[in-house]
C-alpha cells in the first residue's frame, strides 16, 4: 500500500515553523521513509500546479503555518484545504494570528506608507506594490495585501491547531507520530499543548501575587527562582496555554503568550490585562492610573500574538 502523503506550506510567516519541522533532526529521515512528502517548498522543489493536479483529499496531512495576509495565502489555504484530508494550523500565526497579526493595528495604506515610502532605506520614488503592472515584457501580477490579517481557521475549516512560535520540535514530532499512527484526538483539538496554563509547568516559586511596580527585562535582572509577575516583570503565562514547558520563564523571560489563550478564554489580551491589573498593589484611584502608565503599550504587551483571533480582531480605523 502507498505511503501516506504529507505537505507543509507557509503563508505569512517567518519560516520558523518549517525550521521547527527540520529540528526533529535525523528523525526526518525516518519520516521520509514512512511518508511521501508531496509539497514542502522550503525543503523540496514542487510547483503549485503539482498540488492542483492532485485529486481532492489526496494529501493525508498538511501542516500550514503562517497567517493569511494576501490573496495568494487565501488561495493556497483553499487549495490545500481541498487537497488535504487533515489540515493543521501550525504555529501561532496560523493558529491565532501571531506576529504578522500586529499588522492589524494598521491598514494596507499605512503599511505601504511605512514600508515603501517612509522607511529610511527606501529610495524608490513613491512606488508601492500593485497587483498588476504592465511591462514591456508583459504584465506582472502580485497577490493583493489585505488590510486585515486572518488566522487560518477564519479562512478555511481547520482540523487541528499546533500552537507555538514556533511549535517546539518535539511537539511537532509527536503530532506527526499521532497522525501517522492514526492516534489523533477528535477534530478541533489543539495538538502539542495542555488544557492548563503556563503556570502549571513553570518551576518558579509563587508567594503572594501582588505587583507594586513594573520592571523590564531589558534593564533589570529577575530573581532566578521567583515568579516573574510577582517581581513586576510582565508575564502572560497565567493567561497562556501550556505545552512548551514554560521555556521563556525558565530562561528568565516573561511569557509572551504565543501558545494562545487557554480553553474557555475568549480574549487572551483582555483576560491577561484584567488579571495583571487586578493584582496591582494600590488602593488609590489616581495611583492606579499612574501604575498602569508604566506599561508602555497595552495592546502589544497583552495581545502580541492574538490580535486577529481576538474579539476586536484589529484596530478600527476611521
Amino acid at each position: 500500500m502507498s505511503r501516506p502523503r504529507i505537505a507543509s506550506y507557509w503563508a505569512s510567516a517567518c519560516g520558523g515553523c518549517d525550521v521547527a519541522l527540520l529540528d526533529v533532526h535525523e528523525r526526518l529521515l525516518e519520516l521520509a521513509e514512512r511518508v511521501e512528502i508531496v509539497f514542502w517548498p522550503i525543503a523540496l522543489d514542487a510547483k503549485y500546479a503539482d498540488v492542483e493536479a492532485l485529486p481532492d483529499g489526496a494529501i493525508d496531512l498538511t501542516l500550514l503555518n503562517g497567517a493569511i495576509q494576501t490573496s495568494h495565502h487565501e488561495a493556497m489555504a483553499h487549495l490545500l484545504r481541498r487537497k488535504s484530508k487533515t489540515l493543521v494550523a501550525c504555529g501561532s500565526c496560523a493558529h491565532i494570528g501571531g506576529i504578522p497579526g500586529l499588522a492589524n493595528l494598521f491598514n494596507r495604506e499605512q503599511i505601504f506608507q511605512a514600508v515603501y515610502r517612509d522607511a529610511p532605506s527606501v529610495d524608490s520614488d513613491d512606488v508601492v506594490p500593485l497587483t498588476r503592472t504592465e511591462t514591456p515584457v508583459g504584465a506582472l501580477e502580485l497577490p493583493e495585501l489585505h488590510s486585515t490579517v486572518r488566522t487560518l481557521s477564519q479562512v478555511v475549516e481547520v482540523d487541528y491547531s499546533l500552537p507555538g512560535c514556533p511549535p517546539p520540535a518535539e511537539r511537532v514530532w509527536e503530532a506527526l507520530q499521532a497522525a501517522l499512527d492514526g492516534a489523533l484526538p477528535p477534530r478541533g483539538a489543539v495538538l502539542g499543548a495542555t488544557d492548563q496554563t503556563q503556570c502549571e509547568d513553570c518551576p518558579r516559586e509563587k508567594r503572594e501575587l501582588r505587583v507594586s511596580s513594573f520592571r523590564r527585562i531589558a534593564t533589570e535582572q529577575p530573581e532566578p527562582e521567583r515568579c516573574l509577575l510577582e517581581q513586576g516583570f510582565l508575564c502572560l503565562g497565567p493567561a497562556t496555554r501550556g505545552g512548551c514547558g514554560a521555556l521563556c520563564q525558565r530562561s528568565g523571560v516573561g511569557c509572551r503568550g504565543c501558545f494562545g489563550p487557554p480553553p474557555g478564554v475568549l480574549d487572551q489580551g483582555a483576560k491577561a490585562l484584567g488579571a495583571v491589573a487586578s493584582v496591582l498593589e494600590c488602593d488609590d484611584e489616581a495611583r492606579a492610573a499612574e501604575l498602569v502608565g508604566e506599561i508602555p503599550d497595552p495592546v502589544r504587551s497583552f495581545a502580541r500574538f492574538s490580535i486577529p483571533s481576538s474579539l476586536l480582531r484589529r484596530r478600527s480605523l476611521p
Partner: protein
Amino acid sequence: MSTPEREPRIVGFLCNWCSYTGADLAGTARIKYPPNVRVIRVMCSGRVDPTFVVKAFAAGADGVLVAGCHPGDCHYIDGNHKTFRRVPLLSRFLEGHGIDPRRFRLAWVSASEGDRFAAVVKELTETVRALGPCRVGAEGGEAAAEVTP
C-alpha cells in the same frame, strides 16, 4: 459634531448594591434620562472582566458604562478597587484598538445618587452621540466602508 444615522447603543454594567439601586432610585424619583443605556446587573463592579467590555464593543455597542459603589463604600469591602485598577489599563487597550476612550466610562454611583446616575447616562450618551457610531473592525482608508465580520 457628526449626526449619527441611529441612536447610540450603550451597555451599562451596574453593581447590584450601589449603582443598580441608584438607577432604581432614579426610576422611583421619575428622573428622565436618555434611553440609550441597556443595563446589565453584576453583583460587584469587580465582576466586570475587561473581556465583557471588549465583548460589548465587539458585539456592536457604541459605548460602555461601568458603575459601582464609591471607593470605600464597596459592599464587598474593596471589590471596586480591582475595578479602578483595571479601567485605566483597559481604556488604553481600547484606544490601542482604535476605540475612543471617551466611549468607555467608569462612574461611582451610590444607592442614593439617582440624580447622579441620570446625569452620568445623559453625559455619556451625549459624548457617544457626538463621536458617532463605533465601527469596530473598520479598516479605514480606501477600505473604510467594508467592515470585517
